[in-house]
């Protein structure tokens, strides 16, 4: 059973923003809404600068789903977290709950009116007829229904951004790490839980 995920290889990302542009173009995302953006840390520090591309990570236990007061979120059978814009009241709870800042709100007017939430759909559209005009206008293109992967991942020039079934892209990433001999620590224990040395075992009794 496929479970759609994104994975970013920080060793490869060159901060070209091609993924951001591809997403904007493919889904005709309005001005002021960024479904995807590139984050850079240690900007300008030689050897320490790293970039990653961030959007909705389609969490298996999504906090946005948990906090939504009108229950407009759902998860498709292939693991993509989507929402119904007809139900969304634009309250912004999902924005506060999301650790990735994925939910976006179109701003209109001088008083900061907040429109209905918009976020990355993994190019899977939304609850309208697949590949219809209504679906495209509300949610963007449904590439999964065309047998394609998200435009951001397919357009990535260095293939830093991988998208697809979690098992498949994890295999691709693992193969890279083995070949180049580094990078396993990027998303590993040390990065998440402490300054442990790369490649060392996690503390006994800890989660791995």
């Amino acid at each position, binding site marked *: 059973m496929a479970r759609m995920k994104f994975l970013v290889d920080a060793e490869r990302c060159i901060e070209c923003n091609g993924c951001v542009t591809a997403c904007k173009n493919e889904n005709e995302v309005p001005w002021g809404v960024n479904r995807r953006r590139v984050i850079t840390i240690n900007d300008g520090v030689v050897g320490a600068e790293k970039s990653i591309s961030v959007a909705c990570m389609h969490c298996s236990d999504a906090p946005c789903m*948990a906090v939504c007061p009108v*229950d407009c979120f759902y998860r498709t059978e292939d693991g993509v977290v989507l929402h119904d814009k007809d139900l969304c009241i634009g309250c912004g709870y999902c924005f506060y709950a999301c650790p990735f800042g994925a939910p976006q709100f179109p701003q209109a007017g001088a008083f900061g009116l907040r429109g209905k939430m918009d976020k990355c759909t993994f190019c899977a559209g939304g*609850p309208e007829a697949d590949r219809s005009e209504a679906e495209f206008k509300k949610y963007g293109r449904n590439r999964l229904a065309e*047998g394609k992967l998200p435009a951001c991942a397919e357009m990535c020039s260095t293939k830093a951004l991988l998208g697809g079934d979690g098992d498949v892209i994890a295999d691709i990433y693992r*193969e890279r790490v083995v070949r180049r001999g580094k990078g396993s620590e990027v998303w590993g224990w040390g990065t998440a839980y402490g300054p442990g040395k790369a490649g060392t075992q996690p503390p006994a009794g800890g989660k791995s």
Partner: protein
Amino acid sequence: MRRATLGAAVLAAFFLAGCGESPQVTVYKQGKYQGKPDAQSWTNDPPADQLRGSTWTKGDRGSWESAINQRAMGQNEDVRIYKQ
């Protein structure tokens, strides 16, 4: 006397009601999706050739998944560089 006893009983019941222990922690229940149903990707016809998507058998989830996984492997340039 009887009235006083009754009054005392009512007062005691009133004050003792404050000693009851009702649960103070809200147990949150996961909400259920309230929106419109959405079709699954594999229930669609494969796209026309000019869209250059993958091909699968309509309604067959397995064939859609293998098509999409095959496409995902296109992101692995190591296959193209080292294994040709």
